[in-house]
Each structure stands twice: as C-alpha cells, then as structure tokens.
C-alpha cells in the first residue's frame, strides 16, 4: 500500500522517538566490528567456485571505425576460455535501457550495447572482452586482439562540438546538442535589457568525478535452472535487475542482483554501464562464474560535472537581484546509458538556489562529445548551479561594496514565504539567514575579515569566501525507475529479534544504522537486535536503492510505518497478557510494561514468543502476524503540474552555509586552505554523528573538486589522468580542522521532518572556495573563473591581471 504521510509533528517539538535521541543512546555504526577486522565482504571479496576473470579491450581512439577485428591469437593464448566481440554481443542483447532516458524530457537518444559494433565514439569504449582462467591470462590475451582501425575526426570540447560542421558523435543526430532545457519564470530578458545595473560573467568547470576508493565490479553466474545471479557493486540493485532483464531478454524474476557491501558509491555505482550485461554474456558463454573488476584507470574514464556558465544579472542599488540569465553548456561526453547526463538538467533546475529571484531565464544545453560518458556524481549538478549563483552574489556585492554575507541576507527567500515555488521546485521550509549567521559566528567571520585586512597590509593574498547551497533531495522522476518512494518490511521472530528488509541501499554511508534505530525505538528493542538486509533482489522488497540522499527519509520512514504495524500487534498482545489496554502498554528497553505500573511487565522475547505459540489458544490473542511491508512516498512531490503549470520532482530541500579562508602564493599560484566552517540543515537528525560524517565527507569532496581534482584529456582525445598520482584527491594533511554546526528546520511535509543528508556540502564548499580565492586575488585585480583553483589556473589568472 502506498501511503502519503501528513506531518505528525509540529516543528517545535523534537519529533524523534525517545530512544533515538542521541543524549539517550549513543549507537555505533552497524557492522563496525566486521569492517574493522577485515570482514567487510565487498564485491572483490566474493569468490565463487570455478570463477573465471574478464578483461576488456578498450578503444585507443576517440572516434574510429572498426574495419575488422581478429581475435584468433587471443583465443589461442594460454589460459583463455572465451573472446567476445561487439557483433556477437549485439546478437544476444537489446539496447541497454537508460538510467534516465533523455527522450522522457524531449532529448535525443541513442542505443548502447555491451561492446562497440562498427564504430567507437570515445577512447576507452569497450570493444572486445576476454575470459581467462586468471586475470593475467585475460589481460595478456586482450593485447593479442588485432583491430583494423580507421581513425575518424573527433571533438572533445563542447563549444567546438556545437559549431557548424563539427564531427558528430551520433550520425543520426542533426548536431551534437542532445537537449536544450529551459527553466524560466517572469520576464528576465526585458528587465536585464533595461536595468540600470547589470553584470555578466563566465564560469568554466572542469571534468571530475567521485572516485570511490572501491572501484566497480560484477560477478555473473548462471544456475543450472537458467537463473542469472549478478553480484554487483551497485547503488540500485532492483532497477539494475529490471534493466538487465530488458537487455538480456529474459524474465526479471529469473535474475537475482546482489549488491554486497559497497566501498563508496557517490553516483559512480549507478547502473547503465556496458559491463553489467557483458559479464552476464561472458558467464553464459563459458558456463562458469565470471568476474570483472574495474581498474583505477578504467574508473577514471567516468566523467561528470563539466560545465560552462555564461550569466548576466540585473540588480538594484540595495544589491537585490532583479533578474538572472544563465546559459549553461554541459559536456556530457558520449552519452551512454548510465545516469550522468541528468546532471545537466539539475544544474539548470537548481538555479536560482536559495534566493528570491522572480525573473530568471536559464537554459541548460547538454552537448555530446567524443569523451567517455558521465555517471552521477555526488551533488548531481547542484554544485554547478551553486557555483554560479554564489559567484553572482559575490560579484554583485563587490560592485556595490557590500559584504558578501549582507548581500545574501538581502536576497534569501524569507522564512515566512515557505513553502515557496521556484523553477521546478516547491521549497519545503528554510531558515537560510539563520544558517548563514550561525556559520559566520562559528567561523569567526568578523575576525577573519580583520586578519585579512592585516594580511593585505602586509601584501599577502588572503581571501575569505562565503558559500551557500540549496540541495534538492529525494528526487522522484516519473517515467523512470528513479522514484521518490520506497518500501520496507519489518519482521519479528519468536525469539524477539527483528529483521528489516528494505529497498534502499547503503553505499557505505551507514543508513542501515539509522533505519535500525527508528525501528528499534518503535518496538522497544535495542538497535543491536535489528538486522537490516539491503541490496538483495531476492530478499528485499522492490526498491530504488541509493540516490539523492533518500535512504533514511524514505527507506527509514517506510520501515517506521511497518514497525508501527508490528507494534500495534505487540501492544494488543501485551495488553491481553498483562491484563491492561493496548494504550497502557509501553515498549522500551526490551520489555513491555504497563504505564505507571512498570512492575507489571514481560520481556519482548516472551511477548513475541506468545504471539507465535499461543495465538488463538488464549482469549484475546488473535493476531499472529509480526510482519508488515509498507511503502512510504514523500508528500511534497508534484509530478502532475498544477493549474499554473508548476511541477517539482524533489520533495525536500536541505541546505548548508560555508565560510573558508585561503592564502594564495603569488609566485606559484598555490592555494592554501587555512580555515573552514560549515553549518548544515537537513531537518530532523536521527544520528548526529553520522549526519556530521556525511557533511564532513561532502565538504572534503567539494574541497578536492574546487582545488585539485581534474580529469584531463590529451589533444589526441585520450584521457591523460589515469591514477591518483594525477587525480589529486584531498589527503589528511591538506586540510584544516573543519568546524561543523547544525540547524534543524524540519520539513513540514516529511515523516519525522527529515530532509536527507549525504550530498549537501559539496556544492557549498566549492562555492566558498571559489569566492575565497577570488577574494584573495582582488588586490591584484585578478579574477579566476576557470575551475579547479589549481596552482596553474590561479597563476594564469594572476599573470593575466598583471598583463592588463
């Protein structure tokens, strides 16, 4: 049963059940003891009997025709069991369904297969696969495959790809623009044209990715009954199964997808990759389990977040933004079936962020190029929008000599205007200025400014940067298998232990711990007595897995609803056994007791046992089911446009405020991050330690993306960044102590008032650092609008300013 919950709590009460309040119980991460002792059980740790290993030949060309392919030497090599080419794979498959089909929003689309057939459209595209007894055998044989290549013209720059006569990625398309997505309200054009004060600018954001420490992998095995099992380090096992069933043309219930413990997801493990069906085909051909594990270099092929913004704003003397225009270009690579291109949609939709801008005209154009396709990356385009609106705030503030904090206060949507409609978003609730004020206090903003003034008087380049991000979460995209609702089962057994089976998954964030907490609180048991099962399509209810920071807000809420059903049976039975009414029964600390008469009690184990062994044998004991399955759907989703044509796929809108200080070395361009503070509001918090961990991880990912991380293509169209020696992620000694604070503005629409945590922090960190570095460079008259804020890019900006 799908159910929409109306708010049960008013914002001023602490809506959490008593026993999940942190001051009452500190709970440690579930399975921590296993993970700490090397018993985590990740994909790479799975060994099936007789398992063979696959390696993939990838295109060395950005664009080329395959005139012929000779696999005979590879087939004859030692330890080789099977070689598969694109033509053979095509015969056995239908196109891989899109994670998020562009056609749903009017975009152009294309078919993708496990292996390229006649033509490759990016360097790194899979061309052939070898199964070997060992991985070494398979890799050695890959080198023996001979392909007759005819290199073709290619384009790896989105703006060039839009030019007349540019090489096309897809022959059947008129040009390389996959879609132009408008997000418009009011009359931005005329206002900008006639405004007294306007300002324009450009931002260029590099290609970078999330690089989870565990790369992707799959193990396929076919049972003698013809059933396929795919172990996959994947974030959405059920939708992956649905899509595999289409690709392989077999009944979905004949496929089992098992996602073991995942070593970091962040969007990289959304599905739609060619290797998913590929491994299944290989395993079927050799009649043995086949494993493929992504190498780090293969992992780095996956792109994301490469955008150009060209904006123009009109503002008044007080710094109020009157109108905003932004033309966004997203270089989405060669499209693919995986879930990345949608970031171009969100990058447009997320504008104008937390600001009350009534006239805007945003257009986001997703452009295909001969680079590897995108997949999701934590923040999913919201980081791109935030960088734009936060740079705009600072640029306007500088024009008017206003403090960056002040201009934000003047433009924030005020608390009393919620819920608030803006560009495909129905904002739930927010106290934006409170979060900003909190972070300014936490970060010691006034003192930072004083220190900056002092540093400037000594000719040092010190900058302070404010960043604010609005993070739409819990997305619900009708027409896709990315839905906002999810399902959980709660089951109690005769000995009183609890099992939760849920459709949401954990990419390593630990939401199973939070889910166990809310269920345990409802049933009066310890979270340790609750086992949470995720990621197994044979055991768990159909669900949408992990994306959009939704696991607690929907999976946890569904589990809570189901737990309430079980609780109702328990208190009824306890009422019979304790000779009281169900309303007088309290479940807590492993016991059912009578309110105000705690001596009349029995253990939860005695109670559940009684339900199983004595129902229908004791008068009044007539409900035997200690199990319930519930679906929770967030209530602030507006898929059906209202009378004004407004719709909103996201139900909740957490946000965060950031302030950082940097010092730039004038001679080298090196940026040193000196101070950082962030304040986060994700509504109700279930487990503060874990929320803080998510926020810190997100901030750090944002810092890496702002300062160092970049996937660089060489002029020959090949990816030059292949290892962590070139892809520079933050290390512990790169970072200052990050001060973290929390505000709690519950969502009036969501169960327990939760808004979701996980993504929020990336975007604000990027924005804050871009503002800080630009602030540092101001005395030189230098502006940096090319990300990352790496030493070469900063130095180039300094040199440019010196020349002019």
């Amino acid at each position, binding site marked *: 049963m799908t159910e929409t919950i109306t708010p049960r709590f008013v914002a001023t009460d602490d809506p959490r059940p008593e026993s999940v309040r942190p001051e009452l119980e500190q709970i*440690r*991460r579930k399975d*921590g*003891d*296993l*993970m*700490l*002792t*090397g*018993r*985590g*059980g990740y994909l*790479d*740790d799975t*060994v*099936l*009997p007789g*398992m063979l*290993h696959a390696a993939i030949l990838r295109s060395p060309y950005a664009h080329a025709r395959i005139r012929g392919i000779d696999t005979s030497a590879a087939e004859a090599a*030692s*330890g080789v069991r099977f070689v598969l080419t694109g033509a053979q794979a095509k015969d056995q498959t239908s196109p891989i369904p899109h994670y998020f089909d562009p056609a749903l929003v009017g975009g152009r689309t294309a078919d993708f297969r496990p292996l390229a057939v006649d033509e490759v459209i990016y360097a790194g595209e899979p061309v052939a696969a070898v199964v*070997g*007894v*060992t*991985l*070494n*055998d398979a890799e050695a044989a890959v080198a023996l495959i001979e392909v007759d290549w005819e290199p073709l013209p290619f384009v790896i720059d989105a703006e060039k790809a839009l030019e007349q006569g540019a090489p096309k990625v897809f022959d059947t398309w008129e040009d390389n623009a996959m879609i132009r997505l408008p997000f418009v309200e009011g009359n931005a054009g005329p206002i900008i044209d006639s405004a007294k004060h306007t300002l324009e600018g450009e931002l260029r954001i590099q290609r970078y990715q*999330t690089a*989870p*420490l*565990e790369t992707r992998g799959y193990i396929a095995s076919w049972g003698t009954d013809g059933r396929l099992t795919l172990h996959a380090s994947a974030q959405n096992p059920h939708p992956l199964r649905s899509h595999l069933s289409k690709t392989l043309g077999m009944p979905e219930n004949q496929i089992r997808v098992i996602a073991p*413990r*995942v*070593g*970091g997801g962040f969007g990289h493990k959304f599905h739609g990759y060619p290797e998913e069906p590929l491994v299944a085909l290989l395993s079927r051909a050799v009649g043995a389990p086949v494993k493929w594990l992504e*190498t*780090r270099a293969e992992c780095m092929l996956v792109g994301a977040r490469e955008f150009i913004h060209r904006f123009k704003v009109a503002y008044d003397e007080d710094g109020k933004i009157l109108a905003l225009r932004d033309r966004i270009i997203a270089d989405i690579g060669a499209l693919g079936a995986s879930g990345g291109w949608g970031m171009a949609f969100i990058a447009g939709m997320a504008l104008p962020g937390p600001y009350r801008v009534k006239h805007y005209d945003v257009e986001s154009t997703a452009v295909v190029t001969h680079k590897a396709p995108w997949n999701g990356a934590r923040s999913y385009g919201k980081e791109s929008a935030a960088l734009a609106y936060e740079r705009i705030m600072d640029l306007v503030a500088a024009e008017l000599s206003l403090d960056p904090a002040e201009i934000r206060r003047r433009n924030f949507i005020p608390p009393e205007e919620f819920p608030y409609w803006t560009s495909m978003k129905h904002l739930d609730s927010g106290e934006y200025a409170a979060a900003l004020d909190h972070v300014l206090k936490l970060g010691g903003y006034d003192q930072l400014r004083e220190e900056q003034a002092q540093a400037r008087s000594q000719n040092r380049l010190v900058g302070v940067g404010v960043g604010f991000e609005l993070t739409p979460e819990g997305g619900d995209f009708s027409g896709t298998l990315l839905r906002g609702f999810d399902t959980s089962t709660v089951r109690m057994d005769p000995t009183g232990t609890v099992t939760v089976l849920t459709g949401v998954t954990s990419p*390593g*964030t*630990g939401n199973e711990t939070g889910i166990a907490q809310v269920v345990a609180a409802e049933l009066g048991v310890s979270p340790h007595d609750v086992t949470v099962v995720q990621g197994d399509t044979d055991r768990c209810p159909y669900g949408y897995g992990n994306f959009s920071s939704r696991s607690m807000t929907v999976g946890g809420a569904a589990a809570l609803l189901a737990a309430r059903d079980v609780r109702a049976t328990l208190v009824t039975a306890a009422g019979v056994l304790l000779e009281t009414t169900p309303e007088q029964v309290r479940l807590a600390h492993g016991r059912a007791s009578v309110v105000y008469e705690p001596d009349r009690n029995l253990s939860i184990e005695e109670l559940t046992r009684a339900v199983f062994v004595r129902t229908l044998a004791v008068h009044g004991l007539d409900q035997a089911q200690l199990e319930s399955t519930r679906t929770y759907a967030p209530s602030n989703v507006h898929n059906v446009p209202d009378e004004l044509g407004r719709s909103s796929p996201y139900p909740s809108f957490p946000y965060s405020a950031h302030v950082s200080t940097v010092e730039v070395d004038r001679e080298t361009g090196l940026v040193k991050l000196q101070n950082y503070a962030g304040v986060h509001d994700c509504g109700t918090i279930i487990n503060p*330690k874990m929320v*803080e*961990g998510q926020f*810190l*991880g*997100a*901030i*750090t*990912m944002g810092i890496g993306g702002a300062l160092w991380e970049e996937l660089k293509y060489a002029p020959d169209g090949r990816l030059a960044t292949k*290892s*962590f*020696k070139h892809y520079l*992620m*933050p*290390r*512990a*000694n790169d*970072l200052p*102590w*990050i001060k973290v604070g929390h505000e709690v503005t519950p969502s009036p629409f969501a169960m327990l008032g939760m808004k979701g945590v996980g993504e929020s922090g990336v975007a604000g960190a990027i924005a804050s650092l871009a503002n800080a570095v630009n602030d540092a460079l101001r005395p030189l008259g230098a502006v940096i609008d090319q990300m990352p804020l790496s030493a070469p890019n900063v130095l180039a900006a300094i040199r440019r300013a010196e020349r002019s």
Partner: protein
Amino acid sequence: MSTSQASNLSPQSTPGRSITLRVNGESRSVECHDRQLLVEVVRDQLALKGTHVGCMNGDCGACTLELDGQIVKSCLMLAASADGGEVNTVESLGSPDELAPVQEAFWNNDGFQCGFCLPGHLFAARNLIESNDAPSDDEIREAIAGNLCRCTGYQSIVCSIRDAAASARAESPRASV
C-alpha cells in the same frame, strides 16, 4: 563459496616458486608466480580479504599490511621478495569479539564509513602511537597522509587516533621526564 581458489595462479604463464611466510602468527607455504604482488597472494592464495585494493599503484594505502614489523603497501611489493618474512594483515589486529583499542577508537569516533580504507588508517594509527602516544593533530595528519579516504574527510579519523593515543597513554603511562 570457496575461498581456497588461487585465482591468479596459472601454471603455464610465468615462472613460479614456493614461498613461506609467517602470516598472522601461522606459518604458511604458498605457490606463487614471480610477478605476483604481495597483495594478490594475500588476497587470493591466502584468502585474507581484509587487505583491500584501491589503486594497485601505491597511492591509496588500502592494501597496507605489516611485513617484518614495517607497514608496507602490499601492492608495491612482489610476493617473492617477502619470502621468509612475517606478515600481519588487518585481520591480525583484533577480532569482532575482541577489538584492539585502536579499532574500538575508530568505531567510537565513526572513523570510517564504507570501511574500504581501514587497513591503511588502522596500521598507520598503530604505528604512530607506538612511537608517539601524544601526537598532535598535525602529526596524526602526516602519519595518515599516505592513505586516501573518500568518505570521511579524515576528521573523524583524526579524532579516532587522538582517542586511541589517549587510551594507550592510560594503559601504560610513560614516566614523566
């Protein structure tokens, strides 16, 4: 599920040898190829899956273990060169029922999320505390700088190591100098 399979062992392809290691306190003889890395032998032949692979390039530290008392990145070592050596993997630090203090500290401080990076951080933490039981935050950050963690942002790892050092101090207070 079998764990005894030597998935990277293919007798035909490269010359091999038998090596003897003392692994987590037990003497083990394994067949390996000359080109096999220590991490491969530990994971595949010895079926100790707690040592992880994040890069195979010496960059991330997920494959950290202890060889002859030194912490090493086992993806940078040929297994054959460890012949006769004493290997301790993350599995040796403690068991779920009996965690080492450093493991308790990581758990108490939420010093990990997905857990994939733990081998590097746990060994680096232990190593640091053995030589310096009152490390500053900067010393802690330097000590773990050879490891990558993509989930935590390191701060909770720093707190974990602070805590582990404090409990080490409580265990055996040093004579004041």
